[in-house]
């Protein structure tokens, strides 16, 4: 194999010969499985889950290949390869997803072995990005950099990446299984809307452990994850998960795919009974065989050692000067830059949501630029966030201005992280066979309507999320303003919900009123924003706070007044 040396990079798990051999064997295994399908030895029904577990979906118009980006972290070398693949085998772009992965929407089945080989060259693959197995584990996109971090979630996400790879017992689960980890004071990983959500924390002795939430999820029956255990010690981490999955694998429903997620099991069994089942398994599993040895944790932690930060002053006068001279840059810093734990450094979010753009899409040329910038300014490492943006986690404050100028030159300098233009949208009816309505054109229209950066800034923190069907891949349930596409006798309509929240104060949004047409939807969103601005007590009162205070009344009145 002509493996590309990873080079100097920060915070990337370095494959060794064993990891590389595993991926190589999986590629070869899939090649043989395709042959067995073509010869008729495997039926289409039998081949389907195999294809899915290798990341290959059949969509409306073509195959989609979903590439795993473990916990959203990758190197510049890897991103450049993704750009090359997109140029060669797709239409010159890629789409970053809410699972911190990347997908290509226009793939030919016969090209997949070559693509998988190209990915293997940079220690990447498409394994377990679909299918009824444990999927790519996600975490905070600011992991290893955030000022409010308590535990580095990458270490445990990598342990889970290994432990879930071809797990012999849990590869044919009732349904897909998603785990998210947050190790910081602020939850940026939406842990309580995952099958298992983990808060990594420390006890008084400084030891790492985990709070487990189980049974969260969106889709047609949204549930907020329930607390099943306040504290699981690090050494019991795998044993406890093994217990949860074993209970789920045995008792989860298999008669109806819409009731097969663990959230339904927890709901139907009742939390106390579910907990008792898990505790019983856990009590037995707890022992030397499933004990997570501190030595292996320490070994994996060495992969995520801090990059060689320079000794810098806390603040940068160069940054302050640039902000004073360039208001657009100052706005970008205020909106897209977060505090870093190392003095003189900052975390920069690259928005993939330009006004009128497709959320999460990046052209291959943009990917190349981002890879170059990651090498130049952030130790050759970058992250994909679950809100479909890219993060350069370790940028010197002194260099933020140069970085922004280069981003702005390729339409990547949009200042809207966390604002109304930072929309999550699923692929919708433009790509997806399940969708009832398009999501992307609506996202484009809304972001174009609110294009003015100062207007966005005035509105403040307000997330819009759009799903093209009840499966809720666009997370509309947990949006401050959620939009769900529905089909009414062949016409696309949009149902608006308000009050959702993906952070630890998790809330599912409530339906505001009857669904509206695509044309009306943008005006309705604008009306909601105007009512909010007119009612808020001041700039510090967020949309969610105003909504909680004044209720639905003023919003409904404004939108449905003409009815």
């Amino acid at each position, binding site marked *: 194999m002509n493996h590309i040396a990873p080079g100097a990079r920060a915070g990337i798990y370095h494959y060794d010969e064993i990891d590389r051999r595993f991926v190589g064997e999986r590629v070869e295994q899939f090649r043989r499985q395709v042959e067995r399908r073509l010869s008729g030895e495997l039926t289409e029904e039998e081949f389907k889950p195999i294809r899915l577990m290798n990341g290959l979906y059949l969509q409306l118009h073509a195959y989609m290949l979903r590439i795993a980006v473990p916990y959203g972290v990758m190197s510049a070398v890897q991103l450049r390869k993704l750009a090359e693949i997109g140029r060669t085998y797709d239409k010159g772009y890629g789409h970053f997803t809410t699972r911190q992965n990347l997908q290509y929407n226009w793939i030919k089945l016969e090209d997949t072995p070559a693509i998988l080989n190209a990915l293997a060259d940079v220690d990447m693959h498409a394994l377990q990005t679909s299918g009824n197995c444990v999927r790519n584990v996600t975490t905070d996109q600011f992991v290893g950099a955030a000022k409010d971090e308590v535990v580095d979630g990458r270490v445990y996400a990598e342990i889970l990446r290994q432990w879930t790879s071809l797990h012999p017992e849990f590869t044919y689960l009732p349904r897909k299984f998603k785990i998210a980890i947050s190790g910081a004071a602020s939850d940026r990983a939406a842990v309580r809307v995952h099958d298992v959500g983990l808060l990594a924390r420390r006890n008084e002795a400084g030891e790492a452990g985990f709070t487990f939430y189980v049974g969260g999820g969106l889709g047609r029956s949204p549930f907020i994850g329930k607390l099943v255990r306040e504290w699981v010690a690090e050494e019991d981490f795998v044993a406890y998960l093994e217990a949860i999955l074993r209970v789920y694998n045995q008792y989860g429903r298999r008669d109806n795919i819409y009731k097969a997620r663990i959230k339904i099991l927890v709901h139907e069994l009742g939390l106390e009974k579910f907990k008792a089942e898990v505790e019983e398994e856990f009590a*037995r599993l707890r022992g030397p065989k499933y004990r997570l040895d501190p030595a292996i944790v320490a070994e994996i932690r060495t992969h995520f050692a801090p990059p060689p930060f320079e000794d810098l002053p806390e603040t940068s006068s160069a940054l302050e000067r640039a902000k004073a001279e360039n208001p657009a840059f100052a706005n970008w810093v205020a909106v897209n830059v977060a505090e870093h734990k190392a003095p003189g450094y900052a975390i920069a979010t690259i928005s993939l949501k330009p006004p009128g753009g497709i959320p999460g899409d990046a052209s291959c040329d943009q990917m190349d630029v981002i890879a170059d910038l990651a090498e130049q300014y952030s130790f050759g490492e970058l992250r994909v966030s679950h809100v479909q943006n890219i993060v350069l986690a370790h940028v010197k404050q002194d260099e933020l201005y140069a970085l922004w100028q280069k981003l702005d030159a390729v339409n990547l300098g949009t200042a809207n992280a966390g604002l109304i233009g930072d929309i999550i949208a699923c692929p919708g009816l433009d790509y997806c066979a399940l969708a009832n309505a398009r999501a992307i054109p609506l996202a484009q229209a809304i972001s174009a309507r609110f294009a003015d950066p100062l207007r966005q800034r005035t509105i403040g923190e307000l997330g819009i999320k759009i799903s093209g069907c009840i499966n809720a891949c666009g997370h509309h349930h947990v949006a401050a303003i959620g939009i769900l596409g529905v089909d009414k006798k062949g016409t696309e309509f949009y149902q608006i919900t308000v009050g959702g929240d993906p952070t630890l104060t998790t809330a599912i949004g409530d339906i505001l009123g009857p669904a509206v047409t695509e044309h009306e939807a943008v005006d309705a969103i604008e009306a909601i924003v105007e009512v909010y601005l007119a009612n808020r007590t001041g700039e510090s009162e967020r949309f969610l706070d105003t909504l909680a205070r004044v209720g639905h009344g003023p919003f409904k009145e404004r939108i449905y007044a003409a009815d």
Partner: protein
Amino acid sequence: MPLIENGRIGEDAWSFIPDGEPVPNDRPVIISFERWQAERASFDGRNAKLGVRLKGGTLAGAIAPDLDRFALVAVEFPKFRDGRGFSTARELRERYGYAGEIRAVGHVIPDQYQFLVRTGFTSVEAPEGTNPESWANALTEITIAFQPSIDDTQPLSLLRRKLGVAG
């Protein structure tokens, strides 16, 4: 139907006796769990080996109190996508200490063979006309595992390890 054992087609000494048919006393037979529940007293004093077949929804705990009566437990996969059987086998081995033969029956595919072995199955009843090569390959095509197998005693400190041929 062909019996797969240790990656090869082997001889099947067992036969399944459908409910309602007389049970021979002179050779190893497998009966249904339902029959066992209804007629258990009739098997008292039996000398030839007895096996029991669990339907997909029957979990290990149901048969646990009677495991010492059976030299074989057959675990049915109603559909290959229904992975409950993997946990059933693991529970039989790990939780209830069962040391007899565990056989996968019903719909399983060679691509699951390594998982079956690693969760404690000893044999698989494969469909007529199955390709023996695919079963043999299934045990050798992936040589790395990231979790302990049923017969591993080593702790997770060896999260990644190279497998022996039979994994």
